[in-house]
């Protein structure tokens, strides 16, 4: 399968990317291409112009930002997975990056592409939700930051505005317990359901879910039950409360609700065990 024809431009800077994006409303950014190219091959995306960020090496980095970790949007999954700094300061994120797809996918896909794509079935968007990360974007009107909790609006729809480029992901240091429970049929597959547990700056567990709604979501009912003093078992049972999980070949909404409760319980238990061990 070959994508419909498009024009291709490799840009050397974020400013150039913003200018090219602003000049053509049917243009799209290309990072690793591991979400966009499969969609284009299926003609589910038909951009007029691909603006390749691959020539902007200054967007690929992991830096110590003091109270947070700063990760360049073009940093590949394999680089996040292997970075000593990420492993030390945000071990959850390194682990989740290592669970994405397979080695070939991790050699190409980028953290920024994954987050900007906003696929509810993707692992990293749920991780940045649970970690309360902040996204730095640059656009025609300059730079602004978006809390991860305000990024995902609908199915593959984010609050990025036309002409904006995601440049950096800021992840608060998260020394407490964590867990990522990914349920799939084959090792390389997407999660049928996934549960991410991170320790919030407040010290309480944050819980985010993969593939349980039109967007990556927090398990709000579980979080408030825990805050009100509920036990793990009881809080986990509420994981799918208020959510409308999708139905597909792999699972019915009912089965997904069941999986969410089980995975959240296992996740909370693992996170608590890690916290105790730390």
């Amino acid at each position, binding site marked *: 399968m070959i994508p419909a*024809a498009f024009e*291709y431009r*490799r840009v050397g800077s974020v400013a150039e990317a913003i200018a090219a994006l602003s000049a053509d409303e049917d243009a799209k950014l290309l990072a690793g291409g*591991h979400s966009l190219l499969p969609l*284009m*091959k299926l003609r589910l995306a038909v951009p007029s112009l691909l603006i390749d960020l691959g020539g902007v090496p200054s967007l690929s980095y992991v830096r110590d930002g003091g109270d947070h970790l700063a990760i360049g949007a073009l940093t590949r999954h394999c680089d996040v997975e292997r970075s000593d700094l990420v492993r030390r300061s945000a071990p959850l994120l390194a682990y989740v990056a290592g669970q994405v797809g397979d080695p070939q996918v991790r*050699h190409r896909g980028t953290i920024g592409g994954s987050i900007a794509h906003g696929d509810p079935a993707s692992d990293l968007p749920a991780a940045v939700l649970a970690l309360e990360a902040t996204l730095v974007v640059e656009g025609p009107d300059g730079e602004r930051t978006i809390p991860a909790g305000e990024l995902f609006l609908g199915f593959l729809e984010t609050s990025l505005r036309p002409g904006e480029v995601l440049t950096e992901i800021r992840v608060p240091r998260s020394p407490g317990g964590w867990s990522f429970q990914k349920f799939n049929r084959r*090792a390389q597959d997407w999660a049928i359901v996934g549960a991410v547990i991170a320790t919030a700056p407040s010290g309480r567990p944050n819980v985010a879910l993969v593939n349980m709604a039109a967007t990556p979501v927090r398990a709000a009912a579980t979080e408030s039950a825990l805050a009100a003093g509920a036990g793990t078992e009881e809080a986990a049972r509420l994981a799918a409360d208020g959510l409308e999980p999708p139905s597909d070949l792999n699972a019915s909404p009912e089965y997904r609700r069941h999986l969410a409760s089980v995975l959240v319980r296992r996740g909370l238990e693992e996170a608590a065990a890690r916290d105790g061990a730390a």
Partner: protein
Amino acid sequence: MGVKIVVEVNGTAQSHEVEARTLLVQYLRDVVGLHGTNIGCDTSSCGACTVLLDGESVKSCTVLAAQADGRSVTTIEGLAEPDGTLHPVQSAFREHHALQCGYCTPGMVMAVVSLLKENPSPTESEVRLGLEGNLCRCTGYHNIVKAVLAVGATAGATAGATAGAGAAAEAGR
């Protein structure tokens, strides 16, 4: 509109003008004329099309030829020595009967080369996880894993021997 690209393929610089939508696998097969890289699923799942891009495994059905501009690509044709001596991974696949119909083999071998570069002596479970992106319709996974473990064991033994030799030299001083 065409895109001018220069790609080093198996050590030789290739310079072409391609359509922007040309996939790397099509470029390698139809433009450069190297047919060793197979297309299996064409949907990024099977790994049959795996090649090395700057030394790392990628699925060439999910990379644009234009994205490879200025970079180096190694295909299955680029592994053996010019005199025909097989790459250690190729020899191990042969010795351990790690192929049946052979369709997945070029991609499998390239994925293994990349895996062993990142982790020269993997455990069995690291091999299985490291090859999660490659499917074998003939389901000959056991012998593939055996072949990879054999190359890994040799690498481990060589590293051990070198370390041993170093220690001996140290002791002799």
